[in-house]
């Protein structure tokens, strides 16, 4: 079926809403990456099977929906029952009959499945009352977890493609002006004003212009874009079509990394459905606009998140960046003007068109407007996906929304911006989260991954980790990045091995400056950031490694040793996990680590349930 006009779209929206109203009670099963890893696909199937078998008034299989990420991944698998807003956590497939019997049939709440606050035994029934959700504001993620991403009708029912219909009644200049008014800055990390980018592209004299969506999300620790592509693919398409109208493009690409097979699948389904509905292809909504989108799968190269490398990769070549004397918005894919925006930026555009740029600009801070999605991971109670207004403090994100640090440990640092970003210490916790404040503090917004670290994380090891990552991912085209990062990493390794010498840090600082100045693209220019920011805020930790040959966090193997203390119950658990066979002992008798054999891997420490192994 083709939608031929804006009126037709509105008529369909009403029709789908009526259809949905037939099933007032909805069971939303989260199939986001976290819940899926915990087996939520089996829970979805269990709901379908059990509901099909029983005859419950008002509940049919159509009421069960698989949705994208609900956000609170750490409590997964998650199920929300709407319109009650009831929120069940840590569900198992075998518990599904009980939910159907008690909650769906008798309207009883099953207390053991409710969310309980970290450390306290307070149980919360509704998701909206959980601090993790109540502090959030969702724009880019508005539909993620609420609708079935594989069903275009769900998207249309919640007002999907209405922004496109509205944009098509506006001139391209008006659309660009609205996006400029909103103050939207690129959500991929660099924060370039989106409206300005579109305007530049439109003004370039060319027969062809391209629109590309960057779904490469190579930053380790970031999964916002993945959740949007998997959970609400149509919002990305809608944003791209609006952009095509604004800049005058007929051809678009979504570049998705191959590590995200479900995102590729859901986007592909969304593209096919949109074509069938006449929202992609020729004469979109009867407006005369022609535009189509193809998916381009990435090959697992971090550097392909960089614009010029990405465009070479879309063209089927090796993803090496070029020097950007001429920006890609002027000379991009196949040397034609190209708009490249991030997934979250495109998903936000429909809201800006619907509600107006001014309203969006009223959220956040004057120079960083709107909201931003973040993924919280690492040593934090509520790992998951969030979206908050810009300008919120790191403290609010980590402690109010994130629920603080688990196991009663102490907060040490938060890493933002992926390998190009940096680590911020406790003293920076009240910093407002916006593009400029984070950059000033020596980190960066990045695409939105936030890794929280506690006092058992060694900052030298973290710097070594990121440098190692960048050495692997450097494309090798320019020397400062290829050789400079290699040497910087080698020095870092030396320090963690207890072979650091006085003067190493000064040498590394000098080298970092050269790499920043001399590298061709953003990967190299920002490559030393993880080292520079950890050195700035945690210099004493580097010095402890070099001068005292100690790793205060107890991570660097060459500088620590493990010992079994009297708390050992003799449970034998640590003996089989020791890869070098260094632990001996009998049942119910204290075990012993042979220090001559032990390679300090820490496997025993990780499995001991009685805190009987100490790091010294």
């Amino acid at each position, binding site marked *: 079926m083709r939608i031929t006009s804006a009126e037709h779209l509105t008529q369909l929206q009403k029709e789908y809403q009526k259809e949905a109203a037939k099933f007032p009670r909805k069971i939303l099963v989260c199939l986001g990456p976290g819940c899926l890893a*915990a087996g939520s696909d089996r829970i979805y199937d269990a709901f379908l099977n059990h509901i099909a078998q029983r005859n419950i008034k008002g509940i049919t299989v159509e009421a069960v929906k698989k949705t994208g990420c609900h956000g609170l991944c750490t409590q997964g698998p998650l199920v929300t029952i709407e319109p009650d807003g009831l929120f069940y956590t840590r569900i198992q497939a075998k518990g599904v009959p009980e939910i159907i019997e008690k909650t769906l049939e008798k309207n009883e709440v099953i207390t053991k499945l409710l969310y309980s606050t970290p450390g306290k035994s307070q149980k919360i029934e509704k998701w909206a009352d959980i601090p993790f959700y109540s502090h959030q504001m969702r724009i880019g993620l508005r539909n993620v977890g609420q609708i079935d991403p594989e069903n275009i009708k769900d998207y249309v029912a919640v007002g999907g493609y209405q922004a496109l219909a509205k944009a098509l009644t506006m001139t391209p200049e008006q659309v660009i002006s609205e996006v400029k008014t909103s103050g939207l800055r690129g959500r991929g990390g660099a924060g370039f004003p989106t409206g300005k980018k579109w305007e530049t592209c439109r003004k370039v004299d060319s027969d062809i212009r391209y629109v590309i969506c960057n779904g490469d999300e*190579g930053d*380790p620790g970031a999964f916002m874009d993945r959740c949007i592509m998997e959970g609400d693919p149509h919002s990305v398409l809608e944003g791209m079509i609006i952009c095509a109208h604004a800049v005058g493009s007929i051809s678009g690409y979504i570049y998705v990394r*191959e590590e995200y097979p479900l995102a590729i699948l859901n986007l592909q389904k969304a593209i096919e459905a949109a074509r069938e509905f006449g929202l992609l292809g020729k004469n979109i909504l009867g407006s005369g606009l022609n535009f189509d989108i193809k998916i381009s799968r990435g090959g697992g190269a971090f550097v392909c998140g960089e614009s010029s490398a990405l465009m070479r990769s879309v063209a*089927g070549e090796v993803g090496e960046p070029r020097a950007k004397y001429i920006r890609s918005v002027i000379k991009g894919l196949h040397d034609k003007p190209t708009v490249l925006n991030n997934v979250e930026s495109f998903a936000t555009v429909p809201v800006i068109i619907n509600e107006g740029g001014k309203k969006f600009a009223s959220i956040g801070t004057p120079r960083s407007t709107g909201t931003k999605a973040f993924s919280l991971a690492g040593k934090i109670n509520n790992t998951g996906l969030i979206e908050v207004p810009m300008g919120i403090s790191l403290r609010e994100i980590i402690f109010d929304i994130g629920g603080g640090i688990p196991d009663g440990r102490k907060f040490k640092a938060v890493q933002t911006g992926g390998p190009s970003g940096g680590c911020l210490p406790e003293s920076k916790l009240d910093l407002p989260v916006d593009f400029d404040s984070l950059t000033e503090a020596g980190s960066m917004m990045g695409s939105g991954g936030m890794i929280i670290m506690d006092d058992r*994380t060694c900052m030298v090891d973290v710097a070594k980790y990121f440098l190692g990552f960048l050495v692997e991912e450097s494309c090798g085209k320019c020397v400062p990045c290829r050789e400079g990062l290699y040497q910087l990493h080698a020095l870092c390794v030396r320090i963690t091995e207890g072979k650091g010498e006085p003067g190493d840090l000064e040498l590394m600082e000098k080298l970092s400056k050269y790499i920043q100045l001399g590298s061709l693209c953003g990967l190299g220019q920002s490559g030393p950031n993880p080292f520079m920011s950890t050195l700035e805020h945690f210099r004493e930790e580097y010095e402890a490694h070099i001068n005292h040959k100690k790793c205060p966090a107890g991570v660097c193997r060459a500088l620590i040793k493990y010992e079994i203390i009297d708390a050992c119950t003799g449970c034998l658990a640590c003996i089989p996990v020791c890869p070098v066979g260094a632990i001996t002992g009998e049942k119910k008798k204290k075990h012993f680590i042979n220090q001559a054999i032990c390679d300090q891997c820490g496997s025993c420490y990780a499995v001991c349930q009685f805190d009987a192994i100490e790091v010294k």
Partner: protein
Amino acid sequence: MMHDLSKIEEIIDRSPKEPGALIAVLQDIQREFHYLPCEALTATSRALGVPLSKVFSVSTFYNAFSLTPRGEKIIRICQGTACHIKGAKLVQEQIESNLGIKAGETTKDMKYTIEVVNCVGACAMAPVIIVNNKYHGKVRCDQTRKLLGIK
């Protein structure tokens, strides 16, 4: 090793015969054989009109491609930041010691291959390993044998 050449031809036939399709064709071949056989590289080069040197360059640049055959079970260990600080290295060492091979290698009986990936975006479940496309979250190093299906 001999391969069903008709499969390779079938994949190439499906795609547009232009240099821009190179990565997509190699990805499809990789999906079929779990690696890029030598015959496939030459056939792709000929069909798309791309020099063999360039095909080789692309297939060695991207992490997703492998030029050596891989095992029946592919174990991908995530080494993203969240997994790293939650002990993914320990899990990796445990799996390496369980199978007697290092990351990037395949067991002699062609049963297992260990791969390290940068981030699979399931950070909330760190540390994560993926055994033949099935995700396993919050992996402890005493669980690896069970997850690999070995005693």
